[in-house]
């Protein structure tokens, strides 16, 4: 908690630096369900039905993240493209709590973060500049309480804040964070912190190599202090060390269940 507040303060202190986020094209996600509605004398609508791409935002075919849309998370995974921690103490290497269905922006699955929770997405860099985009839906409606940082594995490459396009969410409740950053040499991480007071849904994260002609860099980037970036890098290092661990509880329970179950005809 203390660290989270520090992180918030540290980033806020950088707030007067010039920011010139590059408008990104649509990420390919479909719009979220708008919820039950109806007006005037119209009949009560019990629910709305929506068709999503069950594979998520695969239209971002060159996404450099392992699984930006959270759709390809294996059920019994122990090592995945995202890690989560309840705080910036970074003691844990757990997986993000999963949200499913209409609360997600694209596809079927997304991540759900309680206050102060953080997640880290793993990816690679490219020889090209990087377009960074991620969507977050804060329950408290404050985009500026969500902190998004793009980091590199090497501490010789600055960690930069990925700004929200606006302080307030769009009508559908989603905040869009986007940035174009110069090419990097070392592996890329996307860090998201819920600094708000309510739950945060995170979805549809995309890091793609910039295309020809798009390498017009913003006038300034908001650099995250090394005191903020270093612990995140250390966490990322721990997440990417050799590790083959025993089957997790989910898997053991399922294996036992399937081993002993009878199927009646």
């Amino acid at each position, binding site marked *: 908690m203390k660290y989270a507040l520090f992180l918030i303060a540290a980033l806020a202190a950088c707030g007067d630096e010039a920011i010139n986020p590059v408008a990104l094209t649509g990420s390919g996600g479909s719009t979220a369900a708008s919820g039950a509605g109806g007006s005037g004398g119209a009949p009560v*609508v019990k629910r709305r039905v929506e068709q999503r791409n069950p594979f998520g935002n695969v239209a971002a075919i060159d996404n450099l993240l392992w699984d930006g849309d959270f759709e390809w998370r*294996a059920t019994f995974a122990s090592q995945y493209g995202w890690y989560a921690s309840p705080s910036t103490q970074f003691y844990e290497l757990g997986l993000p709590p999963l949200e499913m269905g209409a609360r997600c922006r694209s596809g079927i699955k997304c991540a759900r973060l309680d206050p102060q929770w953080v997640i880290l997405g793993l990816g690679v860099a490219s020889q090209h500049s990087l377009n960074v985009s991620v969507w977050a839906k804060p329950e408290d409606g404050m985009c500026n309480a969500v902190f998004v940082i793009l980091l590199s594995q090497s501490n010789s490459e600055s960690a930069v804040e990925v700004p929200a396009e606006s302080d307030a969410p769009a009508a559908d409740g989603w905040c869009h964070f986007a940035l174009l950053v110069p090419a990097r040499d070392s592996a890329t991480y996307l860090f998201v912190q819920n600094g708000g007071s309510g739950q945060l849904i995170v979805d549809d994260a995309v890091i793609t190599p910039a295309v020809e002609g798009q390498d017009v860099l913003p006038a300034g980037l908001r650099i995250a202090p090394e005191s903020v970036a270093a612990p995140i890098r250390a966490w990322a290092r721990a997440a990417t060390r050799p590790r083959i661990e025993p089957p997790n509880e989910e898997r053991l329970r399922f294996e036992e269940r399937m081993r002993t179950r009878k199927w009646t*005809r």
Partner: protein
Amino acid sequence: MRGWMLSPLRAAGFGGARVAAAFVLLAFTAKARAGDFLDDGSFYFDPAAVASFDFEDGVPEPSDPRDPPLTRSDASDALSGQWVIDVEPFADAFVSIDLPDVMRTYRASLWVRGGDSAGFAVIAHEDGRAAEVAVLYPTGRITSDGWVELANEGIRVDGTRSGLGIGVFSPEGGQMDAIELVPDGDIDGINPACFGALDDACGVGESCYWGECRNVNGWVPPIPSDREVVTQYLENRLRFLFGPFLQRSIDLPGALIAMEAMRHASDPWSYWNSYALAVRRLHDGHTQFGGLADFVLENPKPLAICFLEGDADLSHLTEPSDPEYHDVLVSHVGADHNLGLAPGDRLVRIDGLHPIEWSRMLVEGNWNHPTAANHQTFAEHASQLRSVISRFASEIEVIRCNPQGCGAVEVISIRDLPADAPGTPVSPVACDNRPLRHVPTAPFETHAGDWDAAYAGLLLESNTIEKIYGIEWESLFTTNGQDGVGANLNAGIQLLENDAARGVIFDHRTGTGGTLAGPEIIWDFAVTTHPVSFMLTRQRAEDEQPTLAAGLAIFQQAVSQGNAEVAGSSNPSSIPIALLITQDVSASDWLPLGLKGAAPNVRIFGPYATSGSFSTFHQLGYWLGFNMGLASADTYLPDGSTANGTGIEPDVVVLPKQSDLVNGKDTVFEAALAWIRAELGP
């Protein structure tokens, strides 16, 4: 209680004018093959459904009669009606459907909400075994009140023979509603007999398992409507993220060729199995593919026989060795399900091929296909024979031997083995590449050690004067030296020091990897501090094999910055130390890497090089249906070369001998013991 069919109108709670509206809608959906929604969001079942469950009249009996009743709760936002089934975390909820006595295909579906849930349908025959499985994948239909549809189509069932269980497993807990089974096709025949993996009797979407063409179409989702996009996205996972450079050079091209088939596959199995094949073709120890069937399908013909590669020195006159592969021998067997085979018997051929060649051939269709990262050793294949023979072989040829000699080549029909009666116990013997155990506390009968077990003690072959000890273990997983195997491994080292052991054999012949904190325990005991390697996560999507000079610069920088892996301690032991290896991955590769050539009193004994899996991995999967691990890094060695794909050669190459096995001897162990005794002197 049988499944029952509800009127779609009653299920949706309609009345009066809404009924008319529903009929209008249905009139426009003459080919409806699934439940659907009215304009107000009310759900109705497909009138063609042969079974539907919305739990309005109570709950059906669970599919396993020993299970507690399903739990339903009143929910105003139930998808259908007013009741839903609650699924507790880590629990499942399944219902049985008694099908019409016809052969046809079905679309099965259900709706879930809440935490992560996975749906599937299991086809079972009279014996109650799970004979086939179909995973229910998201269709993309979701509702504003949280429901997600899971379904699959074209599920082939012979209703004269089989029933269907359908439901969900939920690691996080959730709710289920609106189960539905709708006929979606007719078929003439189903599940013909087949004679092993080489038989072409099976049709599209079928695979020969246990002598029968079983349906595997249901393991995978339908071909995506945006096939080209999904294919390219998946291809880019391999191109961008797969880390090992050597495999990128020599194996990735073949993997991408496999993926080309996804672009024109005409059935779901061909589409998705091409992706599974691509992953397997990457040929890496951390890079694996698996699926729900591994958990659900029950082997009706289990075998309790463990094989390893060796030297069949007693039977070469009858059957010469293969020029490419080592001989395959029985290491040890369980008390039952052993085909009468015994240690030292030789497995000559499987369906006409050398056993290793036959096992390697299974890469085309066996999702679980194992591999070492290097291209020269096949320990994984030898130890998996026990399961794949039962599953994929039609017949095997063996030579039985005893201390007096060997017999002729004998054919054993696997296809004619009778299925076990349900519930028949099977010897729980594990295949651990150890013909014998040598430490008194080790599990002699089962060979099955726990993940955190390390068995240490005075060797059975030694005595309190000679003081040669042993430690036998599999996992190297520990995060801090105390959890996982750490405490037991440290206790074993402590025992050596407390008892003033004069020599030790570290028996790690099945090394399942772990973390580098595992080998550090052995390194600290055995060798002087020295830099070993530097594992580096894949950096950029475009990176390919670096030059030696570039690799050297990376390694040296890692050393100077304190980021390299360092093995050893300032005051290691000087007693003779032998490490036994056979099958390994990851941290179990690093263990011999840190010992190799690092001290004159340390020697590595084994039949061949280690796997060479110097990486780590991340997993991707799709619901409960399939998952894969993909190696995400490579490792730089002090000379600037990259390590993944090149195993650590033993100092002493020694193969298990048939003549030893039949006499109850453990060749590799005996060689290590002889070396230690020679080092100790008279």
